[in-house]
């Protein structure tokens, strides 16, 4: 059995968890490793009674809730669900839905980029 090790170096302090997961997915897909689906991740929060998508460092350290969601895009299954701070149940549902939408948007974008890259490589190859 072979093992696959993934090393990620982050350059910035915001949204690192989600960025790492998305980067790892992209790298695995590009390397030609078979995967059942694309895993994407996004974070959302709740500040001043508004749900916010993709918090940056300032919004994250403001003390509000931070929900990180990782899903399998097409199969609609949740692989990662983390939360800091407390949230009442219904707000949690809105925030989680928002994060899931963000994940799906990223997944579509990743797919487009992969397709375009593959087309270009194939075209170059002749």
């Amino acid at each position, binding site marked *: 059995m072979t093992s696959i090790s993934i090393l990620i170096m982050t350059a910035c302090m915001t949204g690192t968890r989600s960025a790492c997961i998305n980067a790892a997915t992209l790298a695995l897909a590009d390397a030609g490793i078979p995967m059942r689906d694309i895993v994407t991740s996004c974070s959302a929060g709740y500040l001043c009674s508004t749900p916010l998508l993709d918090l940056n460092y300032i919004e994250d350290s403001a003390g509000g809730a931070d929900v990180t969601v990782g899903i399998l895009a097409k199969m609609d299954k949740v692989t990662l669900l983390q939360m800091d701070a407390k949230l009442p149940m219904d707000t949690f549902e809105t925030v989680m839905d928002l994060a899931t939408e963000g994940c799906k948007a990223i997944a579509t974008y990743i797919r487009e980029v992969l397709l375009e890259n593959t087309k270009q490589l194939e075209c170059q*190859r*002749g």
Partner: protein
Amino acid sequence: RGHGTTDQDGEVVATLCGVVERVNKLVYVRTLRARYKPEVGDIIVGRVIEIAPKRWRLEINFSQDAVLMLSSMNLPDGIQRRRTAVDELNMRSIFEENDVVCAEVRGFQHDGSLHLQARSQKYGKLQRGQLLTVPAYLVKRRKLHFHHLEQYDVDLILGCNGFIWVGEHVVVREIADLKEDEQKLSAEAETFTPIETRRHICRLANAARLLSALGFTLTVELIIQTAEASVSSNVEINDMLGAEFYVQTAEGEAKRRGDLLGKKR
């Protein structure tokens, strides 16, 4: 429903990022930048990383190391006999660590690693040359992987695993001549490669590097063409990897492909 696809709720979904190929009713996905995928009979260039009992372990561009057994290798004196313990102790005199070796894939072992053989005179240790690494998908499987470029006196070996050897031409000697040539061997070891050959080697190696960076499939004709183009444009060998020659090569290739398309119509 072939390689790289899976069945999800009755729909065929791809599990790999690549190009979809259809052969009659078989649908499969072919990846581009994946690791080298070996098949029996491939010609491979590899580097020795370890000497184990009765075998050498070679590094090729694969997820596991390939194994070259002592019994799959021709002995230096050419006699076909059983390998004794003395042969085992002399393994180091045939190949050492970090030697570049050319061999053929004989099959797969039970754990998935490769089994190699080097029984013919054209396989074996490669000396006096350069080893290049290119992405494995740029080397297609052809009938001929050993190329002897006469006008440069250079050997070009396109390994299917993406390792390319460009080196001084080695005369393939018959086994009967070996005893007479033993004296010549020691004399040859002292003569150096002439500088013109070395220049040609460097030029061809740079041409191969350039083509692999541009993403073109590597064929001997293309490499020779690029090298000749660099000579005719008076580009210095070390300038070949610079931006200008890149652009020139890309334009030449684009023109060539446009001509091909025009001919097809």
